């Protein structure tokens, strides 16, 4: 029963993250909301699977899947945001540390 509750919290966090994915104004803030969907939603739901199916074959594969998502999701998000910056999308910030100095 505790596992089902944790899975439901993960599903609600996924809905909240995708609402942020709709509502945020910029690519970079949308990537922030997408991390909520990945780590807060799906990984918390897999933790619920771990609690629900304790020490079975579901436990081992879900643990491997949690470690995989935790390692690969920030790497992919960081690569896509860096590529978005390099392809010319300007972030809506005051101080931009990566901006190139003007040519003389």
């Amino acid at each position, binding site marked *: 029963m505790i596992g*089902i509750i944790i*899975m*439901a919290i*993960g*599903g*609600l966090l*996924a*809905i909240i*993250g*995708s*609402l942020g*994915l*709709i509502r945020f104004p910029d*690519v970079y803030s*949308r*990537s922030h909301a*997408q991390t909520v*969907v*990945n780590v807060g*939603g*799906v990984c918390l*739901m*897999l933790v619920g*699977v771990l609690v*629900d*199916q304790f020490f*079975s*074959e*579901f436990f081992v*594969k*879900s643990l*491997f*899947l949690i470690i*995989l*998502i935790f390692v*690969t*999701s920030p*790497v*992919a*998000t960081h*690569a*896509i*945001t*860096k*590529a*978005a910056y*390099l*392809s*010319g*999308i300007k972030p809506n910030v005051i101080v931009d540390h990566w901006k190139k100095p003007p040519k003389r």
Partner: protein
Amino acid sequence: MYEYIVYLLAIAAILCMVRFIKGPTLPDRVIAIDAMSSLVIGIIVLLSLYFRNSLFLDIAIVYAILTFIGNLAISKYLMGKGMHEE
């Protein structure tokens, strides 16, 4: 009991689909597809719990690895597109 959580994840996937249709630039769409694919991983895990068959979890692991590789390939493509404009 697991099907209600599938409903929650499906609503979240539909909301990500809205951003995929509306998104003005290409990285928006890539980010929305990444969120949708992780939601599909969650749905596959709940499907394996529903049928009591642990072979679906192998499919989920392979899907996670393929999503990661696809995201890295698209980010390399976007980087190359930015470099030529300078």
